[in-house]
Structure formats: structure tokens, C-alpha cells
């Protein structure tokens, strides 16, 4: 399935837009409602984190979200361009939520620094 790639200015109001896009894409993959709700929440958390990290930048840099079907697994990657240490201080609640919602959560180096890419996966869809 071709991926969907969304790029948006790091503003809190766009996090909802990203949630809506992710939910629409995930719904087409046949996920059940409760998993879809988890995708909505997890994507929201990941994008909110990226936006908040981006607030440290002098010049706003876009946050990117990409979603695709990887052989039956839904993969979502959210990337920011903040050059920060791996984790932002009040991140624990957010990561706790992510880990409780997605089948797999992986924090990776992003375009500008450690922890700038968050990858979420949900298991077999069919």
C-alpha cells in the first residue's frame, strides 16, 4: 500500500489534523474500532511530542508523519527536527501511553538529533 506522508508546521492545532489523517488511513486497513482509537491516541501523543520538542527551535521546522502498511503491520513514523537529548522532561506519561497503545514503540535518532523519530507499529491487520 502506498504510504501517506504528512508534513505540518509544528503547531499544536495541527496535531488534531494528523490524528484525523492517521485514523482515516488506519481505518482503510481494516483495524477494529478499539485499535483505531489506540492509533488515534498514540499518533496524537507522538505528534504532540514532536511539536513540543520543536518549540525549542529558533526557526519553526516542519514535523513529518508517515504511515504505511508493512506486510500486514501498520507502521507510523513521526519525525521532528529538534536537536534535543532523547527525551523531553514531562515525557514519561506520554511514553507510558504510547507503550500501552501500540504493539511496538521505538525511539530513534531523527533528522537533527537523538530521539527525533518515533516509530509506532500495530500487528497483523488481516
Amino acid at each position: 500500500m502506498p504510504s501517506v506522508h504528512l508534513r505540518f508546521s509544528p503547531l499544536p492545532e495541527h496535531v488534531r489534523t494528523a490524528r484525523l489523517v492517521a485514523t482515516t488511513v488506519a481505518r482503510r486497513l481494516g483495524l477494529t474500532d478499539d485499535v483505531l482509537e489506540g492509533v488515534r491516541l498514540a499518533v496524537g501523543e507522538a505528534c504532540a511530542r514532536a511539536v513540543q520538542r520543536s518549540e525549542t527551535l529558533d526557526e519553526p521546522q516542519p514535523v513529518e508523519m508517515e504511515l504505511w502498511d508493512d506486510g500486514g503491520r501498520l507502521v507510523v513514523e513521526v519525525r521532528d527536527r529538534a536537536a534535543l537529548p532523547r527525551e523531553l522532561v514531562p515525557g514519561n506519561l506520554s511514553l507510558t501511553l504510547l507503550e500501552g497503545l501500540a504493539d511496538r514503540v521505538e525511539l530513534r535518532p531523527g533528522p537533527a538529533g537523538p530521539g527525533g523519530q518515533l516509530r509506532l507499529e500495530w500487528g497483523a491487520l488481516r
Partner: protein
Amino acid sequence: MDLSVTSREQGGRTIVEVRGEIDVYTAPVLRERLNDLVGEGHHHLIVDMEKVDFLDSTGLGVLVGGLKRVRAHSGSLHLVCTQEKILKVFRITGLTKVFPIHDTVEAAVSASTGGEPADTSSPADTTSS
């Protein structure tokens, strides 16, 4: 409007009804409203989440902040929530142990008052969104 917050008095408690989505963008509105209420002397709050469509960690943070604030005044903050998708957020983060959560406003008022004197501050029938 993505989020609206209204409040009213019931049974000596201040019911805060929240409608819409509580996320990183809208949570500041709720934070401000809760702070205003506490500042006006309403220390026993019941936040009605039944019409909340979405709650993220920023929203949780605002509720935790509200709880800390009322406690500083020997007050209380109870929640009304029966929606599974919202309860799940509290459950995953362990916050079901922190907030008393009830099925109805009446149950929350009852639990919140439990024989304590009613809040004697002036009524707070206001709307903000």
C-alpha cells in the same frame, strides 16, 4: 469550537462540564478555567468527562494539576466518566488510582460530600470556550 468548559453548582460542589477534545492545543483552556475556579474559592470540583471525545497526556497533566491545586486548599477533584476510550487513558497511565472516577454526577457529588460541609463560595454558573 474544539473544546468548551462550563460550570455550575450542584449539591454544594462545582460541576465542571467539559465537551469536545482535550489535547495539546485545547488543554490550556481547561487549565485556565480550573485555575480560575480554584482562585474564586471553588475547591471541591467534579469534572464531568462524559462529553469528552478525546483526552491525551496534556489533558491528563491539566487534570493532575487541578487535583494538586484543590488539594493545596484541602479540596477535592472527582471525575465522571463511563466512556471506555477515555477510561483506558487513565488506566494505562495508572491514574485510575489517583482520581476517584464515578458513573454519574450524582454519584460523584455523593462521594465528594460524604457528610462534609458544602462549599460556601459564591455560585459559579459561567461559560467559557
